[in-house]
């Protein structure tokens, strides 16, 4: 029942927050439009989740072939054709972008190709190739996402200093790469580029890599990256980047002294900044993002904000989940978002994934905890698979057996963690996780075995 306005909902920004919100809004029966200035799918599909995972899979295939001898398979002249590797990535992205276009059409969402600007909560201006268009709406969902944050490092404007955006378009592997910022994005590029032959150095300002993750898990990942040849400095501060004859020199402070490391490229991955273009006029944003309540509504009634622009946790699945909540609330359905049970994944080798709180945090918050750890080296499937690094760790409170965190490093970690997500969502006990009959031989048995260990009843490990 529109009538007074052109649309019942307009979604600004077509990333995994925006396009999902638009589809769900349309499914709820609302007349919906989506405005996207660039390519549908946003950062995630075009410059984030998907292209990185496509490249990482090529790296994994390359790695598998290089160790094929272990499996009794011989191959010679193994080489990576980086043009083909990047072209494959482009094909996958293109296919998925086309898919999203089809989904929006099938759900009868009007898509505007152009830059949107909110004049008021109900009025938008769209700058398109052929001029400016105005549309009106009852409700507005803001999903303008984020862009790479470039810290004010002197010399960061040198050619060859890149962000993830450019790294995904390199089309080749640099001989050497200095990565400033050892977050998830930095680590994934480090693993991939090192595997393809670059000499990679990571410089991280914080005292440790991934402070929000469980320390033991990070230790395994860091140890493995180092074994692969990646150099990692933590507690190191970059002062400047300068051009040398053939490369870039990054100067940094480490343990009280100045050092320099050279790289053909320098990748700056120090976080992402919310993108306020088009919504400044509404006066609802703060420095870091747009504050929202658990209905994803901003301080303006009927105006919602979702995804990287609204969330402390900048992840695609968070953006999509928030998009669904905002769309349902726009349709007066009273939906809520909670960030209590949000999984995080790192698609390196070994993979890392977790949900809930770390062992250290659990110790702090709960008087008494139980921890069960099951190493993949004790897993028959991991042995058959040929990848026994890492473990599954289950953290729970000792009194009620409430599962507080599931932390995984090792093969298929990013797929295995979903069982932990479901366990925590359903408020399962340790016993319930341990008694669910997991198929043998699988990697997922490790979750069950870790639960057994936490109960003091470890079968294949103590």
């Amino acid at each position, binding site marked *: 029942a529109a009538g007074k306005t052109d649309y019942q909902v307009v979604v600004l920004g077509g990333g995994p927050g925006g396009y999902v919100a638009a589809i769900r809004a349309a499914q709820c029966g609302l007349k919906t439009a989506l405005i996207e200035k660039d390519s549908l799918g946003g950062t995630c599909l075009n410059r984030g989740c998907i292209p990185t995972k496509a490249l990482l899979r090529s790296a994994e295939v390359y790695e598998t072939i290089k160790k094929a001898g272990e499996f009794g398979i011989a191959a010679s002249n193994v080489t990576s054709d980086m043009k083909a590797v990047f072209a494959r990535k482009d094909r996958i992205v293109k296919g998925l972008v086309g898919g999203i276009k089809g989904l929006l059409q099938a759900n009868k969402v009007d898509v505007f190709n152009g830059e949107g600007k909110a004049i008021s909560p109900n009025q938008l201006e769209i700058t398109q190739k052929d001029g400016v268009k105005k549309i009106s709406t009852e409700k507005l969902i803001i999903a303008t996402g984020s862009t790479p944050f470039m810290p004010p490092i002197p010399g960061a404007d040198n050619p060859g200093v890149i962000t993830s955006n450019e790294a995904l378009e390199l089309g080749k592997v640099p001989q050497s790469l200095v990565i400033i910022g050892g977050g998830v994005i930095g680590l994934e590029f480090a693993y991939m580029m090192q595997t393809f032959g670059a000499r990679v150095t990571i410089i991280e300002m914080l005292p440790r890599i991934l402070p929000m993750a469980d320390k033991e898990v990070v230790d395994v990942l860091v140890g493995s990256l180092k074994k692969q040849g990646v150099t990692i400095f933590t507690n190191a501060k970059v002062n400047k980047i300068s051009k040398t004859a053939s490369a870039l020199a990054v100067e940094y402070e480490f343990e009280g002294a100045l050092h320099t490391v050279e790289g053909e490229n320098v990748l700056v991955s120090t976080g992402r900044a919310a993108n306020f273009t088009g919504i400044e006029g509404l006066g609802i944003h703060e420095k870091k993002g747009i504050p929202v309540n658990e209905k994803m509504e901003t301080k303006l009634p009927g105006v919602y904000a979702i995804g990287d622009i609204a969330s402390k946790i900048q992840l695609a699945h968070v953006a999509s989940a928030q998009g669904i909540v905002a769309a349902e609330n726009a349709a007066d359905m009273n939906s809520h978002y909670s960030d209590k049970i949000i999984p995080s994944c790192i698609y390196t080798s070994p993979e890392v994934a977790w949900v809930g709180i770390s062992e250290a945090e659990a110790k702090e918050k709960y008087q008494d905890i139980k921890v069960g750890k099951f190493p993949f080296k004790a897993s028959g499937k991991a042995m058959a698979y040929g990848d026994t690094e890492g473990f599954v760790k289950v953290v*729970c*409170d000792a*009194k*009620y*057996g*409430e*599962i507080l965190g599931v932390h995984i490093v090792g093969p298929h970690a990013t797929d295995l963690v979903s069982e932990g997500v479901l366990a925590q969502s*359903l*408020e*399962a*006990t340790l016993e319930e996780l341990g008694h669910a009959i997991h198929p043998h031989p699988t990697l997922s048995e490790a979750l069950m075995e870790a639960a057994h260990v936490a109960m003091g009843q470890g079968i294949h490990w103590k």
Partner: protein
Amino acid sequence: TAAIGAEGKIKASPAAKRVAREEHIDLRQVPPTGPGGRIIEKDVRNFKASPLAQKIAQD
């Protein structure tokens, strides 16, 4: 409405039990909405805000 299991035990998730203890709520009063008819954390929190709970608390 109480979620009494086959062995007379109250069916409640660990998180529900924790919150019930923290908030001094009697789980036998809480209507369950969780899987298999068990009490989950949200039920306890909703119950705490309910008029019935406040009345019981006053008694």
